């Protein structure tokens, strides 16, 4: 088969794909054509059906109706292996690697190379893996334990795994959601290399800058339906975002000045040791002030110490830190989150599913959890008192739920996050620590969260906010501090902050090669 023949036949044709789950139509009569060799972006809010469509394409799920053609041949995948044989590889949003196995074993998992005796041929696998990784500009040792790698390198291992099946079609499901800027840039070089080989790429993302930098064509899904497919050059990010949410959303107007109140939190020389790690310290001499009615943004790459900073203030880290933290002038040293909670410090954690949400408790119980004593009548929890208690924060944060006793797992990511913010508002905090609060939240809900956070701050709350998205910090924060390798490398006022300056401070000026941590100068 030569290149022109390939280009004439679309790589993928989907016609009338429909998939129902109990109570939900995930995909409703979706048709899509992907030309061979193109990079086709699929955009949509969470729950729009992007991932389901890709799971059908890669054989993970079977459609209830509809036809699928790959390179002109009708196909019907009974499982992922059949899709692989048809040349389709998928790089999942959640990494599907076995932490305890070496890199090479992960790359060939389920398709192990064998020696003449039928034993696993580790050497051949390692050599092949090394070649694949070298192609990706990655110098990870094929024998290294996968769990010991940084997330960005794990992502590349996942990509190497996809390439090892000689895929002509690669599906990438939000590949940069866990990557730093440098790692994202490396991924983009990899994508360019794949495209040079003629690989067709389906790229799922809701980051508009990426989509508009990479894609040839863009397909927008909303509520399981195909909204439209357009050439990238014929549209704008704002237009695409509008199609995704079904309305034109205005960018958050965070430029309105807030009134800064008294100093509430005073952190001096905060240092958190990191036993057994080359860097030695997770946090190294961090000092800053936080005032009432102020949003202080914390910028930094993954692993810079953002979460550690918030957890140390909240009493959730190992109690081995040195330095001083003063809350409203009084020195504090929380050894357990419950003490922070009582003192008026609240923390919304980074990983909502793992560290925030209680899937077995209903909406009301998720919101009331930290303030249950307020729902007691005669020493026992009262259903009506609890409903009354949570109705306030549910209204204030704008949670959309069928009722206070609905299952929290049935809510969208944005509404779950509002429940958790509501939980902490009930504790009447003075300081609110928000660790990447809009991660995994769709575009519409992000804007609502921004308005909510802005409103809380105007009511006099002191907010410490981290985010993996710089535009978010630039839009929301009054001031931004930048962490790099655990050290505070810069403080910006809103006026002087821009992405370029923050990234320079976040990378500490030290060159970052191959996505590895730059060595700390000692």
């Amino acid at each position: 088969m030569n290149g022109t023949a390939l280009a004439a036949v679309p790589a993928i044709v989907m016609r009338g794909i429909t998939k129902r789950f109990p109570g939900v139509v995930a995909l409703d009569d979706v048709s899509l054509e992907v030309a061979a060799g193109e990079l086709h972006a699929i955009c949509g809010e969470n729950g729009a059906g992007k991932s389901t469509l890709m799971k059908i394409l890669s054989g993970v799920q079977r459609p209830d109706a509809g036809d699928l053609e790959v390179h002109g041949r009708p196909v019907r995948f009974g499982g992922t292996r059949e899709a692989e044989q048809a040349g389709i590889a998928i790089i999942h949003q959640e990494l599907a690697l076995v932490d305890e196995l070496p890199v090479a074993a992960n790359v060939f998992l389920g398709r192990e190379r064998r020696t003449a005796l039928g034993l696993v041929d580790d050497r051949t696998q390692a050599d092949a893996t090394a070649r694949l990784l070298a192609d990706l500009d990655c110098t990870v040792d094929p024998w290294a334990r996968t769990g010991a790698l940084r997330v960005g390198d794990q992502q590349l291992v996942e990509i190497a795994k996809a390439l090892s099946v000689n895929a002509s079609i690669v599906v990438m499901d939000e590949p940069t959601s866990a990557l730093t800027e440098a790692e994202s840039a490396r991924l983009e070089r990899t994508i360019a290399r794949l495209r040079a080989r003629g690989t067709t790429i389906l790229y799922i993302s809701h980051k508009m800058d990426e989509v508009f930098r990479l894609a040839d064509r863009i397909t927008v899904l909303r509520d399981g339906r195909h909204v439209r497919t357009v050439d990238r050059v014929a549209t704008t990010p704002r237009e695409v975002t509008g199609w995704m949410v079904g309305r034109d959303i205005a960018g958050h107007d965070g430029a309105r000045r807030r009134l800064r109140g008294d100093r509430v939190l005073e952190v001096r020389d905060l240092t958190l040791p990191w036993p057994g790690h080359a860097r030695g310290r997770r946090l190294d001499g961090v000092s800053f002030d936080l005032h009432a009615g102020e949003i202080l943004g914390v910028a930094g790459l993954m692993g810079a110490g953002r979460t550690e900073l918030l957890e140390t203030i909240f009493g959730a880290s190992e109690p081995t830190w040195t330095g001083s933290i003063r809350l409203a002038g009084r020195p504090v040293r929380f050894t357990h989150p419950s003490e922070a909670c009582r003192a008026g410090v609240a923390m919304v954690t980074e990983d909502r599913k793992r560290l925030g949400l209680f899937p077995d408790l209903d909406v009301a119980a998720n919101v009331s959890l930290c303030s249950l004593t307020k729902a007691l009548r005669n020493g026992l929890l009262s259903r009506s008192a609890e409903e009354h208690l949570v109705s306030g924060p549910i209204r204030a944060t704008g949670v959309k739920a069928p009722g206070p006793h609905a299952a929290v797992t049935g809510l969208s990511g944005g509404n779950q996050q509002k429940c958790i913010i509501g939980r902490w508002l009930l504790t009447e905090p003075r300081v609110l620590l928000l660790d990447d609060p809009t991660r995994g939240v769709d575009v519409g809900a992000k804007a609502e969260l921004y308005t909510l956070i802005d409103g809380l701050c105007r009511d006099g709350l002191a907010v410490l906010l981290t985010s993996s998205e710089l535009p978010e910090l630039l839009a929301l924060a009054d001031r931004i501090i930048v962490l790099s390798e655990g050290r505070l490398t810069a403080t910006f006022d809103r006026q002087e902050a821009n992405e370029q300056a923050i990234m320079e401070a976040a990378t500490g000026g030290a060159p970052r090669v191959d996505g590895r941590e730059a060595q700390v100068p000692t």
Partner: protein
Amino acid sequence: MPSHSRGAGGAPFLRPGEWTLLAAIVAAVVFTALADSNHSYWQRPLDSLRDIARNAALLGIFALGSTVVIIAGGIDLSAGSMIALSGTVCATTMLALAPAEMAGFKPVGPAVVAAGCLASLLAGFLVGTLHAWLVTTIRLPPFIATLATLVGLRSFARALCESTTAAFTPTKSALINVADPFFKAVRDNVWVPVAVFALLAVITWLVLTRTVLGRHVHALGGNEAAARLAGIRTDNVKWFAYVFGAMTAALAGLFYVGNESVAAPVNQGRGHELNAIAAAVVGGCSLSGGVGTVPGTVLGAVFLRVVIDAVSKIIKTGADVYEGLIVGIVVVVAVTLAQIGQMARGGRRLLPGPLGLCAIPTLAVLGGAVVAMMASPRAGAATGIGAFVLLGLLRRWETRHTAVSAS
């Protein structure tokens, strides 16, 4: 998504699965009444009721403890050994305080009985504390920590029994007879364990659904890391759960001493921890934590005892012969039924691939052998062949059905 919540707070008293369990209990009783050729449910209804009530209450008491531990995301494998230790501590305390009366099978007096019972409950508190300490500070997995005490406590109880009898009686012994009228009364008045069980169930239910502590137990089991970050003192919640688990087992241990008029550390309560876990699981607890109810466990315990009683009535053997087999089958069937809807929706097959193929003769032989032993070889053969054919048809249907839906 279903609109009802599976966790604590604001749910109806009985959930759908629990109604099913209740219906299954009634069905099992009716079936036994009809199928039992001795008609014991008609002839001696009170005797049968008493048997089932006593056994279900004894099992239920420490199954409630296991339920709390399981909802909190842990597991307590040591309940059977705790039962043995509790009985031994009670008997040795009484022996030490009143050696002459104990040796002469005479009443020891209420003060001595009370001392024995309190010592047992104290032992439960200490064992629960030990578990919580091992789990929270040494960070042993609960399975390992309670496996260690499962093995260790029984041996400890025996050693305690032997050294105490050596000190206070002429001969060293691995069991102590308990003849005090208090324990006789507990044995003869079946309403005592039933009332204790009912009271304990109500208290446990109130604690789990209507107190802050209970909500924290659910939160801890559902998501431990999030619970800590929500300011819950998770270590203290675990302490409560393990102490509650061990103290309910200690309480049950006292009833076993009454029932059997002896403290016998070697065999008393052996394997009972698994029955307690089974009752909780049949009642809807999830071993991954966060999910479970008191009504569910109560019904689970009753259901297990009703089925065990049914089998012993229908095939006229000692209940203990088939007890383990029945518990095993009931657990598998109950959990399978709870998941079968989800399996069908997810397109999962019961008998897929080569594993499914091998499972057909495995299940057929197993079913046939059980029936052959319980009833007759002929019935066993019929069951085996029947199961083989039915499973074969099921597999064919599944294969064809998946092929059809895919084409």
